[in-house]
């Protein structure tokens, strides 16, 4: 137990080098094996909440008003311009009410215009506030797990001292017993226990955490269910994992990713461009008014809405990309939120966004592609022995072996022969060691039965003066080339036969890889198996490539090689020896159960410790970008229809023949402008669900996806406002709301 960390490293490398199976000290509690029949899918810690929960909506509405403060509104340049426009219109109304300016349109037009301008800003603020509130609600549920507890700190002298969990410093060791809450993030240095992590993962089934190895990490706020362990605290108070998670969820609002910053720049530039389009309209409209006055021989100029400041403000608001400007922040926050709902904590919004760009995904074979353990499937006899002999010897050798492989041998024998594998009581078990790479049993009659790696067993037989049948080598190779692992069983100086251990592929994995392929990603399986076995499993699972006999060094080299080709690499890891590769990878997802080193090196942590999560991370990243692109395209495409509504309305007073452009046949100039402004405002709340849920990413290949999205959001963005504006106009006319 004391040397455990070293042993673990050894075991890990041994396993990577292809040793068929190993025997470990038997854990008292076993994590329930995953049901192979279940389709892989994450357990949701927080159920996707309804879009408008009463509480969150209330908070969001309040926040929407608070954000009207110009210094806060400034964070969103597009909406800031709308707010300034709304305020200017308000001042204009006051001036008009005091008789300061005269216009051919009634003041009610200005008032409703201004009301809708303010509503546009409020809708935008509400969208952001709603996303924030949902994020905060998530954070709140996390925070509940983080309250002060009593910690039992071990002194240098070995005495136990009661302290508050907030007093713990990194390096402190605490004792945690069954039923107690783990006081802080750390690693188990002594003992093994089952832990209830449902507070952070939502998964009610307990998980095993043990000292040393790759499953030593524990999180503050989780509860020990059995046994007792010594935990070394690794984080400062307030910097624990949960703290950082909460800060992150709340900070997502302020922290903009590079792509979001660039998009904000584009939107600001578009705002500026439309300001440039709208400002010169006033003198140009004035020019037309003056001319028409002389043309028609009038004494006063024919006023049009083109020289009406509030109408020009309305035009500006309609043109600038308010839709995406309003929803941009919400999209970003919702992206983080979706990651969180999948129980993934990204260390930054940038990481989530980057996940969409991944080209290569490195997946561990064990646990990701195959169900963690190999199963015995066949007993192959050699020479004089029968298959049931092989089974019997192998089962006896495995009877004390509690590893899943060992158990599967016993199970296979018992199911094939319908008799229990009886072991003489005086038999002596020989446990597996990394040196011998065999385990076995010494029977009371002196016979020594061994099973293990082929080369080790052959050595054993030869050492006892036995010979090796010629066909053995071929048989071993055949089994290996089928992707299975051969175990040799020997009785003293003769080879009895082979136990074929096969990897069991997780169900539905090949569909997932196909999906990744259509997303343009290359999947690479990492395994410690020999190339022959690896190739077969890779083929069966449907991955694009594999890295056999992988060591931490070869993994790192592989990532670097891909990166020099300009590719972005994602990988998942849990062990300390994964840390260099995790640090090198562009997206590194560490399992929460993994070591602290792995978690530090990664830029995302999966609370479920589910190795298939990488796929979801990539999809969330892509969805985020697709949503942003779609809504931006939609927002800009919308302007075309607004022009057709507003331009004829602007000049109807002076150049009535421009009415031909009004292909929507809107009721009147004022109703046309109001309809456009109302559409512009209403489209924001209408799209909040899209912003929060995200536009679905479809793995169709870039070209097909682009065509599809351009059709839906580009062409749709051109067409929809024609219908919407006309509809609003018709409704307003039928309700006698406009003159």
């Amino acid at each position, binding site marked *: 137990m004391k040397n455990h960390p070293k042993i673990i490293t050894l075991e890990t490398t041994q396993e990577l080098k292809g040793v068929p199976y190993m025997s470990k000290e038997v854990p008292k509690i076993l994590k329930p094996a995953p049901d192979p029949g279940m389709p892989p899918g994450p357990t949701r810690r927080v159920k996707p909440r309804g879009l408008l929960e009463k509480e969150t909506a209330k908070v969001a509405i309040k926040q929407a008003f608070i954000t009207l403060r110009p210094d806060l509104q400034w964070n969103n340049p597009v909406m800031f311009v709308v707010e300034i426009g709304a305020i200017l219109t308000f001042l204009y109304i006051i001036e008009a009410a005091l008789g300061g300016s005269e216009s051919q349109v009634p003041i009610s037009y200005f008032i409703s215009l201004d009301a809708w301008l303010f509503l546009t800003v409020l809708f935008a603020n509400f969208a952001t506030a709603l996303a924030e509130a949902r994020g905060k609600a998530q954070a709140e549920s996390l925070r509940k797990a983080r309250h002060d507890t009593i910690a039992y700190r071990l002194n240098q002298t070995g005495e136990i001292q009661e302290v508050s969990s907030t007093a713990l410093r990194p390096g402190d060791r605490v004792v945690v017993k069954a039923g107690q809450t783990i006081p802080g993030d750390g690693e188990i240095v002594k003992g093994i226990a089952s832990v209830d992590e449902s507070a952070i993962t939502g998964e009610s089934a307990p998980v095993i955490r043990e000292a040393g190895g790759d499953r030593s990490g524990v999180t503050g706020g989780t509860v020990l269910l059995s046994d007792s362990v010594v935990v070394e605290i690794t984080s400062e108070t307030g910097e624990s994992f949960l703290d950082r998670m909460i800060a992150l969820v709340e900070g997502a609002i302020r922290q903009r990713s590079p792509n979001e910053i660039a998009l904000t*720049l584009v939107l600001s530039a578009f705002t500026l461009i439309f300001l440039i389009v709208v400002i010169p309209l006033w003198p140009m409209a004035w020019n037309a008014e003056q001319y028409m006055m002389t043309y028609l021989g009038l004494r*006063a100029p024919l006023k049009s809405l083109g020289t009406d400041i509030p109408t020009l403000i309305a035009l500006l608001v309609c043109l600038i990309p308010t839709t995406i400007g309003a929803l941009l922040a919400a999209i970003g926050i919702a992206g983080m939120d979706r990651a969180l709902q999948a129980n993934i904590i990204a260390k930054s919004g940038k990481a989530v966004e980057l996940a969409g760009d991944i080209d290569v995904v490195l997946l561990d074979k064990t646990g990701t592609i195959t169900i963690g353990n190999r199963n015995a499937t066949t007993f192959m006899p050699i020479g004089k022995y029968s298959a049931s002999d092989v089974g019997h010897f192998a089962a006896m050798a495995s009877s004390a072996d509690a590893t899943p492989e060992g158990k599967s041998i016993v199970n296979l024998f018992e199911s094939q022969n319908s008799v229990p594998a009886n072991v003489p009581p005086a038999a002596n078990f020989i446990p597996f060691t990394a040196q011998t790479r065999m385990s076995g049993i010494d029977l009371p009659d002196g016979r020594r039965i061994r099973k293990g790696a082929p080369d080790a067993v052959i050595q054993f037989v030869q050492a006892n003066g036995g010979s090796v049948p010629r066909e053995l080598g071929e048989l071993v190779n055949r089994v290996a080339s089928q992707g299975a692992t051969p175990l040799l069983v020997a009785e003293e100086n003769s080879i009895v036969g082979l136990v074929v251990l096969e990897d069991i592929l997780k169900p539905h994995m090949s569909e997932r890889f196909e999906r990744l392929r259509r997303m343009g990603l290359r999947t690479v399986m990492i395994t410690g198996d020999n190339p022959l076995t690896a190739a077969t499993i890779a083929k069966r699972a449907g991955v694009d490539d594999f890295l056999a006999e992988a060591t931490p060094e070869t993994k790192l080299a592989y990532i670097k090689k891909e990166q020099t080709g300009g590719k972005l690499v994602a990988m998942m890891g849990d062990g300390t020896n994964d840390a260099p590769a995790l640090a090198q990878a562009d997206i590194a997802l560490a399992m929460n159960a993994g070591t602290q080193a792995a978690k530090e090196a990664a830029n995302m942590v999966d609370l479920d410790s589910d190795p298939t999560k990488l796929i979801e991370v990539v999809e969330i990243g892509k969805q985020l970008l697709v949503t942003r692109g779609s809504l931006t395209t939609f927002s800009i495409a919308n302007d075309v229809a607004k022009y057709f509504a507003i331009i004829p309305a602007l000049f109807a007073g002076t150049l009535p023949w421009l009415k031909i452009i009004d292909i929507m046949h809107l009721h009147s100039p004022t109703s046309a402008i109001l309809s456009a402004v109302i559409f512009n405002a209403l489209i924001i709340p209408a799209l909040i669900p899209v912003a929060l849920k995200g536009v679905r990413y479809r793995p169709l290949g870039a070209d097909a996806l682009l065509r599809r999205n351009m059709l839906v959001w580009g062409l749709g963005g051109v067409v929809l406002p024609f219908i919407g504006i006309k509809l609003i106009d018709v409704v307003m006319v039928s309700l006698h709301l406009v003159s």
Partner: protein
Amino acid sequence: MMFLQVWLLPIALLATATILAFPLSRYTAWIMDGKYRPLPVFRWFEKRLDSGPQNWKQYAGSLLLFNTLMFVFSFLVLALQPWMPLNPDGKTLLAPSTIFHSVISFMTNTDLQHYSGEQHLSNFSQIFFGIFNLFFSAAIGFSALSAIIRALRSDSSLGNFFLDMWRVVVYMFVPLAFVIGLIFITQGSPMTLQTSHAVSTLEPGAMGTRDTGEIKKQNIALGPVAAFESIKMLGTNGGGFYGMNSAHPFENPTGLSNFFNTLAMMIFPFALVLMYGRMLGRFKHSLVVFTVMLVLMTGTVVWSICFDTLKPNPGIAGQSTERNYEIPSATSPGKVTVTLPAVASLPVDQHLGNLEGREMRFGTSAGATFAALTTDVTCGAVNAEADSLNPIAALSPMTGMWLNCIFGGKGVGMINMLMFVIIGIFIAGQMVGRTPEYLGKKIGAREVKYAMLAVLVHPVMILMPTGLFAATSWGLQAISNPGAHGLSQILYQFSSASANNGSAFDGLGVTYGFWNAAHPGPSAAAFDIATGLTMVFSRFIPIIAPIALAASLGAKRSSPFGLGTLRDDSFTFGFLLFGTVVIIGALLFLPVAALGPVAEHLGPIPFGG
């Protein structure tokens, strides 16, 4: 027959220019990549000129320095005109504002002329101000594009500006201009240092008589026209030797010379798009861009021909029915009815379309074709009166200038299109679910900033001054027709200046003439200065910002193409680019289009006449 009469010329032009673009782009790429072996005498010059590899700041700095020197030199030539040789007619000094305007205009490859060559310039000025600028200003955009390509493909340096200029001028412009000049001479263009030739008119006294009773002879202005004309077209300069530009029988004597005139301005803009792809190693991508440009160009040509050559002049056709419009009254509640009376048509045969201001020796559609092409490729030469285009047909040349990337000027057209590529990919490209990439390089905040800056300048420099001049006496005094047409004139002037085009909706009184002119254009000085500034900003910001953008993009790590990456050589990409150009263009200029050409087209007849 009628069909061929109208469409043969545009089809032949587009087809010839497209076919020529393939070999010419191979040649230009070969030259700009420095794969040629210069003659020893040329090598001697190149060694002197090559100041070493430059980064983007050095390249842009050299470009600006060279332009400054061009400005000083050209300014001196014009300012010292009365004292310079080759001036037997004693042409005196141009108005200072006109000198400022002309120098900038020629330096920026705009060649908007607020003077009339044969009246105001000596042959010395035509050569050392005119031809000098025609060669060098044309080479600047070309060089800038080469530098941008090198930056995009992550070369160690952007090349050397001075060496690039040398290559463009010596290995491309000089030989081609020589050949085309010879063609013009065979067609009848003069090539002489003589300034004028006196002839007796067929009808005695057609030019009037002197006080002494002596019959006046006609003085025909001459000069090195063929040399001027060839590089004027090849370099998409457009500034004419004569005020009448390519409509003048010495600049463009025959139908054949008109074909070569038009073709000459198209070949480099066409070829440079393909050169972009060849030098980048992404030829298919450039073919897609080329196709998008060709579709847009076809659109503008078809538009102007359909509404000009195939439609009668509305001023002559009149208006058959009375039209009534109700408009809200400004003074009292209720509505006022405005009646537009029917206007009888004039007894003029209109079956050949609108022929006002057309040169019939080129054919009926030559004017409309030329108007569309010259603005698409930002040449700005004219072979017909743009002001006389049917109102709605005038949208075609305006669109060419507004978009400014339908092939565009040599180099700068492709550079402008590159900005649309970047913006299009950035906005719509995200819809494939990756951070937008161009040539495998991620487009970030920095690149987007430069692209938006380059795109922003153009509408600012068109719309703001148009608005200012439309509402002040500067504009109102200068226009020949009030109302929508007058607005179009102002709008066209600033569009032309900002697009560095140089063509003009004539009729705008912008000519000041000599400094002591008796009746200068009332707001000529205001137009000189305003368009002069417009040209400077609209020239250099959209060249420098893209160079910076390319340098920033080129410094990035390049990721390989995959199934998830947006392809830049597909039909989908072409559609994306087309949509980006058309939608952004429409959003920027629809309102002014409605107030100018559209209002005039839909309005009463005569409207603004």
